[in-house]
């Protein structure tokens, strides 16, 4: 794993929000930690006041390539990821063509390696063409160079209960996980926003919470029955949190994710009819937001996943019903989680490391990500200035998507540096250089 990526001595960083210490990064690994470290020829980084965290791992990213390079490319999306503090992202399968074969997942994997900003781990489609008809060649994707472990038809629910059962069973052969987009299709035909007080007034077709909750309830029971591993994408309702809490108490092997936007925004914003707030699953009520925060704090929800979903402007500059669903999120996730979870006292920075990194790496089976900041570990490390405050300006982001629902908001927390396999992809809050190809020679 180690490559020739230089030597960096980080001075006086607060390790996971705890006491200050030095970190010596050399040739891709954390060589040493402790007080008053020295190293000849090291680049010194003064990290006083900065928090050192493991590089963030996104379990849910849409990089759009291949097929929609007008919305995002692996290059632009992973630049955004690095700036947002990520060292690994899971690229969702709903590209064109769909990532349902070894060929497509290897293409995405190679594009990620060539870009060099983060680890790109492709997610494989569960069914051919996301059509919900027959299983894609999950084993071939698992055995490919991309080593796919997460499978998802994200954007579309695997709603056929028999197919879902088979997928859950089948991925056990290679320690895979099925990441379900929980949305009962019949209950959400034509749905435009959360069904409730606001949809009643706006005359937009409602998207009932029960459409999500009924699928999650079914799936945790299926996972229990066949003894498989289930991951629930973008949990959005209080009822879903309750069901997952119940499932975990019964020992069912389920993990769940919440997006930053569902931790902060509510369906009241839809009153503007501005499609920047149109997303799947939809923004819900304040009671749901509070339940999601509580669920993330108590471990019912394991991870934060961005569901970063860039769209070209013409897909948002239109009528609500015509607009595409999705929001960008890679470059705002850290700030939104700090704002909603840390500044509210619900979690610590050490918890932050768990929900944005170590737990996410475990779900995706990424051995070199989400590791402790200890000697001998891979140097996927970020430095965060928790005191910084900034105003979100989508036009200045690295992602091609301008559809940030946080536009104009002032948020706390800024990524100052990102070390990816020992190489600084971000320095002084700006993009530096990608991981050098010369360092990859001989690497896995």
């Amino acid at each position: 794993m180690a490559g020739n990526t230089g030597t960096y001595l980080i001075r006086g960083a607060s390790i996971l929000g705890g006491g200050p210490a030095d970190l010596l990064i050399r040739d891709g690994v954390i060589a040493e930690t402790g007080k008053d470290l020295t190293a000849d020829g090291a680049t010194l980084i003064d990290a006083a006041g900065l928090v050192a965290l493991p590089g963030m791992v996104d379990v849910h990213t849409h990089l759009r390539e291949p097929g929609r390079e007008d919305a995002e490319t692996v290059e632009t999306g992973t630049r955004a990821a690095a700036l947002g503090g990520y060292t690994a992202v899971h690229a969702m399968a709903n590209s064109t063509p769909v990532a349902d074969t070894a060929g497509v997942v290897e293409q995405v994997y190679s594009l990620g390696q060539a870009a060099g900003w983060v680890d790109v781990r492709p997610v494989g489609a569960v069914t051919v063409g996301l059509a919900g008809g027959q299983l894609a060649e999950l084993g071939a994707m698992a055995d490919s160079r991309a080593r796919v472990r997460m499978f998802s038809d994200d954007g579309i629910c695997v709603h056929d209960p028999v197919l879902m059962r088979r997928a859950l069973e089948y991925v056990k052969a290679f320690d895979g996980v099925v990441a379900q987009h929980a949305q009962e299709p019949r209950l959400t035909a034509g749905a435009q926003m959360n069904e409730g007080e606001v949809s009643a007034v706006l005359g937009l077709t409602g998207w009932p919470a029960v459409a999500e909750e009924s699928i999650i309830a079914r799936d945790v029971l299926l996972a229990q029955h066949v003894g498989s591993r289930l991951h629930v994408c973008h949990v959005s309702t209080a009822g879903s949190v309750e069901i997952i809490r119940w499932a975990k108490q019964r020992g069912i092997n389920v993990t769940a994710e919440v997006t930053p936007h569902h931790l902060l925004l509510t369906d009241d914003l839809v009153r503007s009819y501005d499609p920047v707030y149109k997303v799947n699953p939809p923004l819900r009520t304040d009671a749901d937001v509070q339940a999601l925060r509580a669920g993330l704090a108590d471990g019912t929800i394991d991870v934060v996943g961005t569901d970063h979903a860039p769209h070209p402007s013409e897909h948002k500059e239109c009528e609500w019903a015509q607009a595409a669903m999705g929001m960008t999120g890679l470059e705002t996730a850290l700030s939104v989680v700090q704002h909603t979870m840390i500044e509210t006292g619900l979690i610590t920075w050490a918890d932050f490391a768990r929900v944005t990194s170590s737990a996410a790496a475990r779900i995706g089976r990424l051995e070199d990500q989400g590791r402790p900041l200890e000697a001998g570990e891979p140097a996927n490390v970020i430095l965060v200035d928790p005191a910084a405050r900034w105003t979100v300006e989508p036009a200045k982001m690295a992602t091609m998507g301008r559809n940030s629902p946080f536009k104009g908001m002032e948020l706390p927390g800024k990524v100052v540096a990102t070390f990816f396999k020992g190489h600084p992809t971000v320095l002084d809050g700006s993009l530096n250089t990608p991981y050098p190809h010369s360092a990859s020679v001989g690497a896995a």
Partner: protein
Amino acid sequence: MKHLLSTEDLSLANAIRILDTAEEMAAVGDREVKKLPALRGRTVVNLFFEDSTRTRISFEAAAKRLSADVINFAAKGSSVSKGESLKDTAQTLSAMGADAVVIRHWASGAPHRLAATDWIDASVINAGDGTHEHPTQALLDAFTMRRHWARLAGTGSEGADLKGMRVAIAGDVLHSRVARSNVWLLRTLGAEVTLVAPPTLLPIGVEKWPCSVSYNMDQTLEQGVDAVMMLRVQGERMNASFFPSTREYSRRWGFDDNRLRALDALGMKDTIIMHPGPMNRGLEISAAAADSPRSTVLAQVRNGVSVRMAALYLLLSGDTREPAAPALAYAGTPSTKESN
């Protein structure tokens, strides 16, 4: 007022002002020469993304009686059907000099998008958007009710509200922009509204609306109503399990001959029967009810032109002041405050 997008955010003062102005406009309609020069040289575009001959010709008549130039733009068969966006269509019309855009759209919120973005400068009038609102329909309904209510009270309409009037709105509330706009406007004007519908055709969240809800038409009538507004049942609802059959719907929620007789038996001689049209005779309203002296269906159509004249006049005459109080509504003095 720069735009007329919804009745939810229409103030009492502005509602009364529109209704009072509509009374003035109605007087023009009674003259031999039914035309005012008020909007000469101004251009009104009727931008219809959904077929609605009735609403379109009502707006067209209103604009022409005010001497405006009218451009009718039906999205079907135009560049829109070739994939042109709302933004480009609106900007194209704006570049041709539209002063007001009257928009009918199948998508809820489309008029709000036109008004809230910087795509165009023109005034926007919502002529019905999806299942959201249809403010000029509610205004013409309120105008019709107000005349009736004032006549019963032996007073004039001008400056009056609808305090104490009991209004039942019956039918497919879930998909009805007419119901929504009426609920908000009637609340603002002080009427007491009861929605009567099968539970399947009421939105989740209706319990927060400023009205009562009933599943029983006969009970609602027995409790006393001054106006019954029947909503059209759309054909596409009939095959989507909202109700078992049209006959059952008609028996339970329709205004049939038995209920027409019940009004007489209950002694409600002044109760009016309203319908926004087009009617499904024999489904939500019986022929006898539609043609009875209680029916205001044609008066509503007539009043629609007056109300739309008032809306166009108030938005385009440069009179953007917010009236200080309903009593001063029509005589009002200039002010700079925008209502929208």
